């Protein structure tokens, strides 16, 4: 296996880039980053590997967190509980994992596998099944590929360990796991269904950790040089500028463990006089410009702080903030008919035909 030692500077960049790819959700990676700083200070190190270097019969665990970001910033997950989620899965399947992987690169889960990897001394694979963040477990390349939807382990810091052993599809896994998670207090450490090296090579979305690091490096470099950090992202990624303005209203409601709502932005600079409205379910789902749909899932809609270029989350965005909205292209697997069935606008209850901002 070819391994690359991940420096703490890589992890700092990963945290910034993963938050951008979180498209409003996934939880701010700051707390996982703090855990990583503490682990690196204690001498732990983590290595990154490419999916192509996995042997077909290697076994990879998806390690991450589940739940409402708002709960995450109060309960603050830790590396030991996450490691227990992976160990619980090993005990259940009676096999040891050879590597860990992110369950979604967007948000805190982009960094979390590194927390368990540090303690377990396992490498992290540079792939994930979302290429962004999504609110539900079936919104993944692995579900679209028809890979086993279970088992999944869910662990709480108070000594609660659950395995959802068998389900007919990923939607059922999501429904049952979410009930468990809500009972835990809407936050849980989890290990997603074990995948072989062959499965990851075929169905993983590859290079996403490196992509997050690249975005994070661009933002951090621009901040250091006092350059336009939003432009810096668009320099390293093939994205599109959608809107620039000031937040004038945020409506939120918590239903079924999701943070749903709507964000309104009044245009500034070249967008003065125009208005944008963005619907969210944890993540930004549909962006409307003057009441016409402009960008929608699976396109990545990223709301960024206009000054720092860092992402702004749906749970913390506030009245008066100056933000810039950009779109990044989605992973190709989401553009197939099956992909759109899982993650297109209708999967979120919007009666819209998917139209990419990148196709026009």
């Amino acid at each position: 296996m070819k391994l690359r030692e991940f420096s703490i500077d890589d992890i700092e960049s990963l945290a910034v880039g993963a938050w951008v790819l979180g498209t409003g959700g996934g939880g701010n990676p700051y707390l996982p980053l703090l855990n990583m700083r503490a682990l690196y200070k204690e001498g732990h190190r983590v290595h990154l590997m490419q999916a192509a270097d996995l042997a077909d019969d290697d076994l990879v665990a998806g390690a991450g967190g589940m739940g409402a970001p708002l709960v995450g910033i109060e309960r603050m997950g830790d590396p030991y509980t996450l490691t227990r989620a992976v160990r619980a899965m090993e005990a259940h399947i009676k096999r040891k994992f050879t590597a860990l992987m992110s369950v979604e690169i967007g948000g805190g889960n982009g960094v979390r596998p590194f927390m368990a990897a540090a303690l377990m001394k396992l490498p992290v694979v540079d792939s994930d099944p979302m290429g962004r963040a999504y609110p539900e477990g079936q919104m993944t390349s692995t579900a679209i590929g028809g890979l086993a939807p279970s088992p999944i382990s869910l662990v709480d810091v108070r000594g609660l360990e659950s395995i959802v052993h068998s389900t007919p599809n990923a939607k059922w896994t999501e429904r049952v796991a979410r009930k468990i998670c809500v009972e835990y207090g809407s936050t849980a450490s989890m290990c997603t269904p074990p995948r072989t090296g062959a499965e990851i090579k075929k169905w993983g979305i590859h290079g996403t950790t490196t992509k997050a690091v690249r975005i994070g490096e661009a933002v951090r470099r621009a901040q250091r040089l006092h350059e336009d950090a939003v432009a810096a992202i668009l320099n390293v990624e093939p994205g599109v500028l959608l809107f620039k303005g000031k937040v004038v209203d945020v409506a939120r409601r918590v239903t079924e463990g999701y943070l749903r709502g709507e964000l309104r932005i009044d245009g500034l600079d070249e967008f003065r006089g125009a208005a944008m409205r963005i619907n969210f379910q944890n993540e930004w789902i549909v962006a409307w410009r003057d009441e016409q749909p402009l960008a929608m899932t699976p396109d990545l809609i990223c709301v960024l702080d206009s000054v720092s270029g860092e992402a702004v989350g749906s749970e913390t965005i506030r009245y008066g903030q100056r933000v810039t909205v950009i779109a990044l292209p989605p992973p190709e697997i989401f553009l197939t008919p099956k992909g759109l069935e899982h993650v297109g606008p209708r999967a979120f209850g919007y009666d819209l035909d998917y139209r990419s901002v990148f196709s026009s």
Partner: protein
Amino acid sequence: MRRIGIDVGGTNTDAVLIEDGKVVRAVKAPTSEDVTTGILDSLKSLGSTGVLAGKKIDGVMIGTTHFINAVVQRRHLTKVAALRLGMPAAASLPPFCDWPEDLANLVRGGVWMVEGGHEYDGRPFMPLDEAAITKAAQEMKAAGLKSVGISAIFSPLDPTHERRAAELVAKVIPDAVVTCSSDLGRIGLLERENAGLLNAALADLARDTIAAFEKAIRDSGIAAPLFITQNDGTVAEASQARRLPVYSFASGATNSMRGAAYLSGLSDAMVIDVGGTTTDVGQLKLGFPREANSVVKVGGVRTLFRMPDLLSIGLGGGSHVALDPLKVGPVSVGYRLLKEGIAFGGQQLTTTDIAVAAGVLPLGDKAKVAHLDAATCRKVFAEAARMAEEAIDRMKTEAGDVPLIAVGGGAFLIPEKLPGVSKVIHVEHGDCANAVGAAIAQVSGECDQIFKDLTRADALSAAQGIANDRAVAAGADRVSLKTIESEDMPLAYLPGNSVRVRVRVVGDVAGS
């Protein structure tokens, strides 16, 4: 309307009298060690021309950089016992975990993490471990700790565990000063806890400082209510400011910027406020400081409450100067400038001594600084200019040259030309801009309550109405009211369609 604005800085205490929107008189006096004398001196000096004689004063508004200076300089801080209710969660990230090492070492008196806290839906996360809290309090007492910062998971939604813990601590340490994180508000345990710990670290300083303010007003014979200005450019009563000094954290800087806008007539510009100890750089938008987006770092600590977006650096008129190697600040002689500065017969070389030697300031005894040659002075000024330029550059949000208003007693350190600045503007009374800003501080009204069975729009508008009425009752002009905060949070665990709404409005003081 006749108001006195006072700014108590680390070095100078400034006072202004504003009558019907005009600055009638502005004076400066050195800040005294006991604070009171400095205020008394400045009030005496303010009244020395008879402008106060026989006149009714509507209010004395005091702003101060005392509290933020203490954190930036790591001085006058109280050792704090941190008590977190939330075990076994988050044990890998204990209180102080993201503080700069030096500040943590100064403030961290001890950390206790016990079981407690709530879930988002109102259930207890763990039963409150009262025995462990009492044991922790006994250990705090044994360690001589009296200032306690208490945090609990989801305390903004249910503060009962924090309050119960405060009672238990008070039973063991009756004179403990306790800050509960729920008093400071927002969701986000670490940032809320940090704000609470900083607040607790200021407990002694806040008590002594506010007492000194009150004594000074009493002794001056001015019969007017005392108000303390806050971060958002509004005023609070002294008792609240004493309990929650972090809310007055950036008031000195906010006042300076609002004063700079008022005095220059400009509403969009960069402002650099050079005090005796620190320099604040910020940006004026429509006459108000640009606000920081959510998380704000204070002295390197992440906190979460509304603050102007400012960069503070340790540069001022009282900054220590070392010549070899060249270093300016961050330590300052502060209010002891007139005793410790070399030009005044002291031993410590400061930026003011350099200005005296260079003939820029007609102060002190020039003979005492004759040994400082022109080249040395140039080198020190260049270093100060470099520090200022870097700070301005970091705060600029757009490329291109912008006007810069230079205010504060140390503004002599800002050259007439700086890269990235279209023009440097010095204003009349600019050295008292902070006191002017305090005098024109606004009145606010707030509504923070839970509404049931209303649509979101109706709940917001009901809250708005209550906040408006409260502001008007507190003396605001209804026409001038502006909403500066509007926030609603659904409370899923309460019956009915419950939503907690927080609305804050500010307005100008109504003419009398």
